[in-house]
């Protein structure tokens, strides 16, 4: 059986359904907080160990990377199992962060091969955080991420003029302003939207 309905009702229905489909949440805060805390811990450990006699100040990074990758894989698996729809937005964000990971590996590889210094790789990574959070913020219309991205770019520029070991503190600062602070604010937004 099909109900008859007029043009006004038809338009109202379209608006309602589009609004419903749009209000799907992208639970991004989990990843910002996960990587934010891990990278903050990694950089501070690395910076601290530079002032000891320890031969391998980068010792914490493999553990941190593995923990981050496991956390990310679990998060993606959980959200895929829960999501009943695929949005264009989630797809674009996925491409952006995949591109980010490839760029990150490229920068680390260049440093490992001795093509760029470790301090320069730190600065490029900060600028890359800037790009990714700036673009993500624009996509999900979330200003703290946009401002965090701009702040990271400014930190990257300022870091060109500091002693090499202090670029680790620059990463720590960049992670706080572009991942952790926006991450907590985003989590609050997600919570408040869930309660609507």
């Amino acid at each position, binding site marked *: 059986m099909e109900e008859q309905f007029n043009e006004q009702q038809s338009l109202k*229905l379209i608006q309602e359904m*589009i609004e*419903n489909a749009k209000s799907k949440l992208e639970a991004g805060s989990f990843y910002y907080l996960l990587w934010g805390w891990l990278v903050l811990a990694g950089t501070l450990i690395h910076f601290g160990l530079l002032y000891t006699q320890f031969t391998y100040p980068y010792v914490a990074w493999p553990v941190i990377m593995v923990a981050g990758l496991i956390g990310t894989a679990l998060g993606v698996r959980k959200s895929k199992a829960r999501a009943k*729809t*695929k949005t264009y937005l989630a797809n674009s964000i996925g491409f952006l962060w995949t591109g980010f990971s490839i760029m990150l590996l490229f920068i680390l590889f260049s440093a490992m091969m001795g093509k760029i210094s470790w301090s320069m790789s730190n600065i490029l990574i900060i600028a890359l955080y800037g790009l990714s959070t700036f673009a993500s913020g624009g996509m999900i219309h979330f200003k703290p991420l946009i401002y965090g991205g701009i702040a990271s770019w400014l930190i990257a520029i300022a870091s060109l003029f500091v002693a090499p070991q202090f670029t680790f503190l620059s990463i720590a600062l960049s992670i706080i302003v572009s991942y952790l602070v926006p991450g907590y604010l985003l989590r609050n937004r997600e919570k408040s939207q869930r309660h609507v």
Partner: protein
Amino acid sequence: MFKNLDPILHSQLRLSIMSLLISLESAEFSYLLEQTKATKGNLSIQLNKLKDAGYISIKKSFRNNYPLTTCKITPKGISAFEEYVEALSGYIHKNKPTDH
């Protein structure tokens, strides 16, 4: 003269389905069921009508051993939806002065 409204789209449930799919890359059957509040049988029938018209594509697969139906709007469906909205606004503008 105003264009006729596409009879395939001018039905409450089929229009709801199309309005949801226009904003998403793809959606599962259970999501459409939740949002449209239709019955499973009716939703299946209307999805098949949209599929026969070439407006949507339906992919059947499995997830954790359970059947999974995923629907996606086709380019033909997008243009049909756009034409429908255009025709609709024509009707609404025509009726506006006498609308009480």
